[in-house]
């Protein structure tokens, strides 16, 4: 069972003028490296108290909006053809999420794209899918599910693999929430609401099934948990994540992003958790990760043990910004995961 921190004290979201800061929700999932089993199916999860969670909507640019509540940020693209979501938060928030979507658009929900498998991003899959209606025609024939029933859920194949199980074995997640359209490598392209949408695979990053989503005309990238603004990134080693993969993915995002003027604006990036960003923010994050990775790498080359590495405090200059001593992902956990990840390299 996934352990949740209780909600004491950290729920108050801070909303900056003109910007919504993501709530450092203590309900956030912590896919911690020593966590082994996928949690019980969403409906059997320890009930969370979502009563006090408010859903906030921030228009980003073009057709794209950012939706913040608890769990991972949701990206919404809305237009004449319907609504597309990237990630679906927790199952317990689905009603509020749907209500928020309906404030922007009353068109059918056509697509859900999952950036990765964790329940704070996929928990609402089943509920949201049922509330939707897939687009008829086109590639729908290849769906696993009945084409008429619900929205399509697009994700990398490893998300489906992680959520399902062979016949006769209890699946970790209810089949109603499984991806219906998967891809294996490279990217999957859609054209929706007047723009191309690219779902790009990022191997061995946060997990082994990460996708970033690039809305080409709106010029917005949804990064999933590869890029977060409030903590060091979670490296889910059990699920095939690695620090090098996260750094490669962040570099890919930087490659895609084009700033408008003096390194500001232009392509916007919606992180898995945290505030709206542009390329310069991602560059800062990439630099921090690369420097820490290089430091730990050097220490490993010198034969230092994990304890010695921790004592050497390879993250000390970044801790005030990204570090934590309590909560679901502490600095110690990050250093340990980074150490394991870098040591595991061939």
């Amino acid at each position: 069972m996934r352990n949740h921190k209780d909600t004491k004290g950290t729920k108050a979201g801070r909303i900056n003028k003109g910007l919504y800061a993501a709530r450092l929700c203590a309900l956030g999932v912590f896919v911690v490296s020593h966590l082994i089993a996928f949690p019980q199916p969403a409906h059997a999860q320890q009930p969370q108290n979502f009563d006090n969670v408010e859903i906030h909507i921030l228009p980003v640019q073009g057709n794209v909006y950012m939706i913040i509540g608890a769990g991972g940020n949701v990206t919404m693209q809305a237009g004449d053809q319907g609504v597309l979501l990237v990630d679906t938060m927790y199952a317990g928030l689905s009603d509020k999420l749907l209500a928020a979507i309906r404030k922007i658009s009353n068109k059918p929900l056509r697509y859900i794209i999952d950036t990765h498998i964790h329940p704070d991003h996929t928990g609402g899959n089943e509920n949201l899918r049922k509330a939707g209606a897939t687009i008829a025609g086109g590639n729908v024939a290849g769906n696993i599910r009945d084409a008429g029933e619900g929205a399509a859920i697009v994700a990398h194949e490893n998300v489906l693999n992680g959520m399902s199980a062979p016949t006769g074995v209890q699946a970790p997640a209810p089949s109603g929430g499984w991806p219906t359209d998967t891809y294996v490598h490279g990217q999957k392209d859609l054209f929706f609401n007047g723009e191309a949408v690219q779902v790009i695979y990022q191997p061995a990053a946060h997990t082994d099934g990460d996708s970033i989503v690039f809305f080409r005309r709106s010029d917005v990238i949804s990064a999933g948990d590869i890029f977060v603004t409030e903590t060091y990134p979670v490296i889910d080693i059990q699920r095939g994540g690695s620090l090098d993969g996260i750094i490669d993915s962040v570099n890919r995002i930087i490659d895609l992003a084009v700033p408008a003027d003096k390194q500001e604006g232009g392509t916007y990036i919606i992180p898995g958790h945290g505030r709206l960003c542009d390329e310069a923010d991602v560059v800062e994050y990439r630099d921090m990760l690369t420097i820490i990775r290089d430091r730990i790498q050097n220490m490993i080359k010198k034969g230092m043990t994990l304890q010695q590495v921790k004592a050497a405090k390879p993250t000390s200059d970044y801790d005030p910004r990204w570090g934590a001593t309590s909560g679901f992902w502490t600095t110690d956990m990050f250093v340990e995961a980074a150490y394991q990840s870098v040591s595991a390299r061939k």
Partner: protein
Amino acid sequence: MTGNTKTQRHEDTKRAASKGSYSRPSLCLRVFVSLCFPLLAYGQQQNLDNIEIHVLPVQGNVYMMVGAGGNITLQAGDQGVLLVDTQFAPLSDKILAAIRNLSNKPIRYIINTHYHTDHTGGNESIAKVGTTLNVGPGANLQRPTATIIAHENVLNRMSAPAGVQPPTPAAAWPTDTYVSGQKELFFNDEGIEVIHAPGAHTDGDSIVYFRRSDVVSTGDVFNTTSYPYFDVQAGGSINGVIDALNRIIQIAIPKHEQEGGTFIIPGHGRLCDEADIVEYRDMTTIIRDRVDAMVKKGMTLDQVKAARPTKEYDRRYGSTTGPRTTDRFVEAVYRSLSAKK
């Protein structure tokens, strides 16, 4: 940027008879066998007097301009005008008039897809009328003309080392070059990527991708009027052309049932979408594979020609007259493949 010290030999103008030669704009009325003049007879004297410039709005901020020589792409908006390629020098007045019909804002950027004169001939006269945008590091506040962006090899082929007569006047040379990967700008509210396609039509090809407008300007790596032409003397190769076509296909995303979505402006010919370029890529790949198999079997050029590896495509892309004949194409593919290791 003045001629740099690169020792790249610029093409001797005496080579006008061979493919890919480059002559000074003052000689541009002489026909270049390497260049395709879609509307005119391939005579010695090219009369540009009767050429009209036609403007086709594509999508977003982007327009296509067709006259003589390579297609021009124009992007217009609040910040000014950006052009991809500039056709021939004698057409500059007409081109400028056509631009003014769309926008009276300053011309800020010219991007050259490659160095051939049917794409760069108008550089000097058009850049002179423009005004660079003074932003970013390295902005030359003294330079009142439009910025000309291209791959470094375009500059190399247009210029010459000190003391040697350059093939083109310095005012026509690129002012901002890049060497590998891509160069990015953000102009008129969209990201613009200038992407290098190595060893394709020439050694200095760029593909220009307008991100929000969702239009790709390909330069001469793609055209709809003939077999792919690549300038072996200038570093072009058939495999590079195929890689470039695949790159464009990777960028392009169709809107519905393989139609629309990303539009593609070829170097010569009509406006296309992804399906058109896929067809062209398939044709090129099939012919390349056939000739490759023949080369591996040790066949001579004459034997390859006799085997007619392009037969079923000839009615669509082939030609027996003019500068780009089927025979020349087969020969170029043969040489390109025989030369590779």
